[in-house]
Structures are given as C-alpha cells and as structure tokens.
C-alpha cells in the first residue's frame, strides 16, 4: 500500500487475492514467523535456555502448589465427603443383634453405606491412639459401645434430611445415641480454606512473577536489539511487523518454561512421595500422590504460553513504540 503514490503497489499486499487465499497466506506467514522465532531461540541456546530455566522454576512452583492442594483436597474429600452419622449402640446389644441391625439398615433407601466399628476394634484403636496403652489392659470390662457409621445417600445429606434420618435411627431399639458429625467438618473446612487461600495467594504471586520475568526478558531483548529495530523502522516496518517475533518468543518461552516446570514438578513430586513413603513405614498408612494429568499438563502449557504472550505483549507494546530512529 502506498500512501503518497496512487499507481504504486508492487508489494504482495496489493495483489488481488480471494479471502481464502488471504487466510491461507496469513496462516502460512504466521507459522513461518513462529518457526523463525523458534529458530532464533535455537541459534542462541545458552541464553534462551537460561530464560526458560528461570521461567520453568517460577512456573513449577504454582504447579507444585496446585498438586499439593489437589492431593490435599483429595484427602479432605475422603474425610469430609458426606455428612456422617454415628450411631452408638447400647452396651447390652449382642453381636448377632448388631449384625442384624447392619443388614436392616443397608436396605434403607436413605442410606448409602453402613460401616460397623465393633467395640473390640474400638478398644484396640483407643489403646493405640490415646496414649494410655497397656493401662487399659487393667480394665475389667470393655467400656466402649459398638458404633455404626452411616453415610446417607446424596439426596439425604442436606442438614434437614439428615436430621430426619437421625430421628428415625433414634427410634430403633438397640440404639443408645445418634450423632450427626457437623462440628469437626466445619473445622476441617476452615483449615482447608486457610490452606487454599494461602496457596492461591502464593500462586498468584508466582504467576505475576512469571509475567514479570517474561516481560523483563523481552524488554531487555528488545533493548539489546534496539539498533536493529531502529533500522527496521527506518526502512518502513510497522510496529506490528517488528513486534511479532518478540510475541512469538514470549509464547515459546512460555511453552518451554511449562515443559521444564513439568519436569521439575514431576521430580519434586517423586521426591516428596519417596519422603512420605519413609513416613508410611512408621504409620502403616498407604500414601500415593497424584501427578499432573495429561489434560492438566496441556492446560499448564496453554496458561504458560498465554502468560508468556501477555508478558511479552505488555513489554513490546511499551518499548517498541518508544524506540524512535534518530541520526
């Protein structure tokens, strides 16, 4: 397009093309520039790698936090899933009667599952966890009752529905007490909320710092190419043309940073898991951490390249405009 000379226009941009041809050539030109920008990074592997390392480390922390909170949430889920109802039976109830009761309850349509903690098991667990240990061997008699832990079906987990169920259970002959576990759930939720909020604050900080790192890197690489940019402006390049390679570089930094951080996160996870498994031997409690799913990894790459693009765009917008050819 010539602004001052009407008849002039040998440039490709002036050739008459159909919309499809234009779209195709637009895509081809972008793909070509993306590859060229990748080639530029490849040609200076040392410096590019350094930038990507910085990014990778910065990104791996939000990723690690995400994994920690995901695994934490899983545990919390397991604990907090339904509003549980604990049913304490009378001490006088015989073993067969309990078995009968459990079988009955499992037919109730409001009830999803019934777990029976026999008083003998409870005593053993109590001995182990209370710290009173063998002292309890001196008990004349098992003072603990049998307990049934009942999980209502999804439809009966609302507070009101659960309360109706509680009343129904209290009617039963062998039952001495029915308890709806609400309070400790509230506590757990409060703890989880604090932990999650902390993670979100830290992750936000880190994502911000990723954008800053990319922006800073692009800014400095713009400055280091200041004379080149001036030359391009001198021979008639638009800001859009000049900034495109930098935007692509930002995206590539994001992509490779995400890849690196995936590796770092995986190593970190494996490391924590092996450390926890050392603990497991003490606790006899099987722990298995979940890594990043393929969909989550893809999401991470998309987010990272988005942040790379955002960082470089913020930087490019400001600095390429500011460079004006003098002399």
């Amino acid at each position: 397009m010539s602004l001052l000379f009407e008849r002039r226009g040998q440039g490709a941009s002036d050739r008459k093309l159909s919309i499809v041809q234009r779209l195709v050539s637009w895509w081809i030109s972008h793909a070509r520039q993306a590859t060229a920008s990748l080639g530029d990074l490849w040609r200076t592997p040392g410096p590019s790698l350094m930038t990507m390392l910085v990014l990778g480390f910065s990104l791996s922390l939000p990723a690690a936090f995400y994994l920690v909170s995901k695994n934490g949430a899983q545990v919390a889920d397991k604990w907090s899933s339904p509003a549980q109802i604990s049913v304490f039976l009378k001490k006088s109830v015989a073993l067969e009667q309990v078995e009968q009761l459990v079988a009955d309850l499992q037919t109730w349509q409001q009830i999803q599952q019934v777990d029976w903690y026999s008083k003998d098991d409870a005593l053993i667990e109590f001995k182990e966890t209370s710290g009173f240990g063998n002292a309890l061997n001196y008990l004349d008699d098992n003072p603990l009752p049998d307990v049934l832990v009942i999980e209502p079906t999804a439809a009966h987990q609302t507070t009101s529905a659960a309360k109706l169920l509680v009343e129904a259970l209290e009617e039963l002959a062998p039952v001495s007490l029915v308890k709806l576990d609400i309070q400790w759930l509230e506590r757990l939720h409060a703890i989880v909320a604090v932990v999650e909020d902390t993670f979100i604050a830290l992750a936000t900080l880190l994502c911000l710092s990723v954008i800053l790192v990319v922006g800073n890197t692009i800014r400095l690489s713009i400055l280091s190419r200041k004379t080149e940019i001036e030359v391009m402006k001198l021979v008639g390049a638009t800001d859009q043309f000049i900034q495109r390679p930098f935007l692509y570089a930002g995206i590539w930094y994001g992509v490779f940073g995400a890849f690196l951080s995936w590796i770092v996160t995986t190593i970190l996870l494996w490391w924590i898991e092996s450390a926890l498994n050392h603990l497991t031997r003490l606790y006899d409690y099987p722990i298995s951490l979940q890594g990043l799913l393929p969909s989550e990894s893809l999401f991470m790459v998309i987010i990272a390249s988005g942040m790379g693009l955002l960082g470089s765009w913020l930087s490019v917008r400001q600095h390429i405009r500011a460079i004006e050819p003098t002399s």
Partner: protein
Amino acid sequence: MIRFDNVDKVYGSGHHALKNVSFHLKKGEMAFLTGHSGAGKSTLLKLIALLERPTNGNVFINGHSLNTVTRRHIPYVRRDIGIIFQDHRLLTDRPVFDNVALPMVIEGYSHQEIRRRVAAALDKVGLLDKARLLPSMLSGGEQQRVGIARAVVNKPPIILADEPTGNLDPALSMEILRLFEEFNRVDVAVLIATHDLGLIARMRYRTLTLREGQMFNDGLAAEPSL
C-alpha cells in the same frame, strides 16, 4: 515531487538547524545538496523521511503535505523513499542478503521475487559474491554499498542519499553516481547530500547549497566560498 515551503527546524537543544528553506525538486529530477559540516543537510533529508518533523512550514511529497501524516502511517511513507544513511544503518546480525532484502520482506514480497531483485541490486554495487557475509566482515566502503543496494532494491520513486560516497574511492564513487543516474532516467527523484565538491563539479547537476541552515545557493554547481 518534493517541495519545501518555508521550512524551519529548531531542535530541542535550541539549535536552529534549518531556517526558512524552500525549494522544489520535480519528478525525475536529480540534485546535489551540499554545505559545510553541520549546515543542515542531514536534517533536510530527515524531514523528508519523517525522521524529524518541521518546526514551521510544510514539506510536500507528490503534493501530499507530510504534516498530515499520522504516526501510524509513517512506515508507509518511508516505503516509498529509498534512504542511504550517513552511518550505513545495517542489521549487524544478518547477512548482507537479508539486509538488502529487508524492505521487500517488510512489504511481503514472494521469496522468488526477493531473491531475484536482491541479487540484481547486489550485482549493481559489485557485492554479489559477499551476499552471505555479515556486515561486520565488510570494509567500510562495502558496507556503504550494501546500504545503497538496500535503498534501491524496492525501486522507490524517491531516493535520498546522505554522503553515499563518503567511504568510497573516486572510481567507485563515480560508479555509484552512474547507478543513481540510471534510476533517475526512469523518473526517480534523487537528492544526494555530499561534501565531495570534485564529484559535484564533474557531474554538473542542480546543486542546493546550505550554509548555517539557510539555502545559500540553488542552481548549477557553484564553487561555494567555503
């Protein structure tokens, strides 16, 4: 083609670089611009290429006032002007070929077209065999010729040259001027800033002489008193 209308240029530092300059360079005309160091030659060329804006007055290209060109449209104006800079202004990290190709790449020409025309331009300045070298591997004069090739590769309707022969020996200078004459013959307007009075004397083209920012003489090469 290029018309200056009472143009003043005062730099931020307070220096009055051009004072009430007026002239008209017609389509297909070729002229020299001369004057002492600091007379304002480069400033005048910069106003045409929109590298600076006039403080007063108006510059017209092909009848369009440059004062009406917005920042966003400056690149499109520059594409119509082939400029040779006093300090070459090459991309130091790209080979000679890429440097010369740059204006065509910016305009989105096809690869074949670019290859063909860059080779032709390099051939004209005698550097076809150095197309793959980096500018830092060239001598000063060779770099200057790369700049000349880049300015003409796009066949612009206007060519501005700031001391295009400052680093060239007399024989080569003559050759380059012949190249400009060749373009001039196909209706390209050429304006050459130079202090090489011998060259000016030999060529006998219209000569604009600046002194302390004022148009001191406009006519055939007159040996200035300086």
